[in-house]
């Protein structure tokens, strides 16, 4: 669920479309956009305070095969929330392994690659200090 929450909607849509046959569903809670108040801590470790909100879309549904799925995803994309809830439900059924290989693993790899790329660029901006030899000795 955490992975789906952070996945770029366009990418999930692409992988999902390529996955093929999926069970029908009915909504238990139709996709709804809202806000979540994000907290920080004073001095990074102290008492919590309210930093500001972020947009989140949530959704709950039931597959015709009986499994229930929930989603809380970042942003306001209702289709994205529905797909995430479908996947959450299907991960409890027979298609779990196939879904993991076709959708979740690529999302995970992509997330890691994006992170690694930014980490690598940050690493290139790391200062390598050297001390000049002074003429006193």
């Amino acid at each position: 669920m955490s992975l789906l929450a952070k996945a770029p909607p366009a990418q999930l849509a692409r992988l999902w479309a390529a996955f093929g046959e999926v069970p029908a569903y009915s909504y238990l809670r139709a996709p709804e956009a809202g806000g979540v108040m994000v907290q920080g801590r004073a001095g990074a470790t102290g008492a919590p305070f309210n930093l500001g909100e972020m947009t989140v879309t949530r959704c709950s549904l039931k597959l015709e095969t009986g499994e229930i799925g929930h989603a809380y995803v970042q942003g306001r994309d209702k289709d994205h929330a529905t797909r995430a809830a479908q996947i959450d439900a299907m991960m409890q059924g027979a298609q779990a392994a196939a879904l993991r290989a076709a959708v979740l693993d690529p999302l995970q790899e992509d997330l890691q690659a994006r992170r690694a790329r930014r980490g690598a660029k940050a690493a290139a901006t790391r200062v390598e200090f050297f001390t000049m030899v002074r003429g006193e000795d």
Partner: protein
Amino acid sequence: MYVAVKGGERAIDNAHAWLAEERRGDPAVPELSVAQIREQMALAVNRVMTEGSLYDPDLAALAIKQARGDLIEAIFLIRAYRTTLPRFGSSAPVKTAEMACERRISATFKDAPGGQVLGPTFDYTHRLLDFKLAAEGGTPAAPEGEARREATPHITGFLNREGLIQTEDESDETPPDLTREPMELPAARALRLQALTRGDEGFVLGLAYSTQRGYARNHAFVGELRIGSVAVEMEIPELGFAIEIGEITVTECESVNQFKGSKTEPPQFTRGYGLVFGQTERKAISMALVDRALRWKELGEDDQGAPAQDEEFVLMHCDNIQATGFLEHIKLPHYVDFQSELELVRKLRRAAGAEEVKEAAE
């Protein structure tokens, strides 16, 4: 006399139609897309998210487009939209110690574990206009190094080990929320931090600068400044456990300040804290300095009468939407109010004139 004000409707409609046309500018110039603003005006987007108090880069970019680049107007649009969102809940406090840092510098320790990582910064540029940007063209790829895998420890943790810096004691108290209850003074630090993080960048910067120039001087160092992404975790009622519901970029500044000690506190370093959405480091540093200045009471310092120490002054004036709302309303029709003022001045002048005539006669 009461004057009914009516009849502006057509003028208002036409003014808004012209506004839409002016917003678009010369139709011969290609129109900006929201995605272009989000990607290429990212620091404006970050400011709108921070002061609009809503993390959503697409919405912030749309607001900037709608506001013709007027960032306070864009912040106003985001604040208005924010009020329409149902609140799903509160996240767990973000763990900035686990941040995937893209920038991390310390002005106090050269050899900080984790290193000095400059990131995509304007620092050390010559501030000369780059005319190459006026011509469109490709951008060379940024060089890459060996990415760091482990988390980067906070600098203040090292000072803490020697007991040289005031500690921040962890608690799980529910913080007050000024978007839900009106602000009450004196405000707890949690409320002050919320007000400062969404406060106007220019106002908070000016106050921070005043502390550096000597108004409530507390000599700040940037102990650490870090920018990067952190996961946002929330307890999901349907599940009964917490999951990550997203990832946000934040800027965090911890200032380390000289402190000679007071009646209640030993000589040690004290701290100020800034945390804001996106890459918004001028604001984060300013927030840390003003946070520190406002802590004079709890640290047993003297009230020097400086503006940055005055909680009422800072907190009641740092919100640019409140400020602009009250300021700009005075340009709206005040015909009736003004008419009564006019009557009053005329009456006073008549009275003064009568007085003069009487004096001349005597």
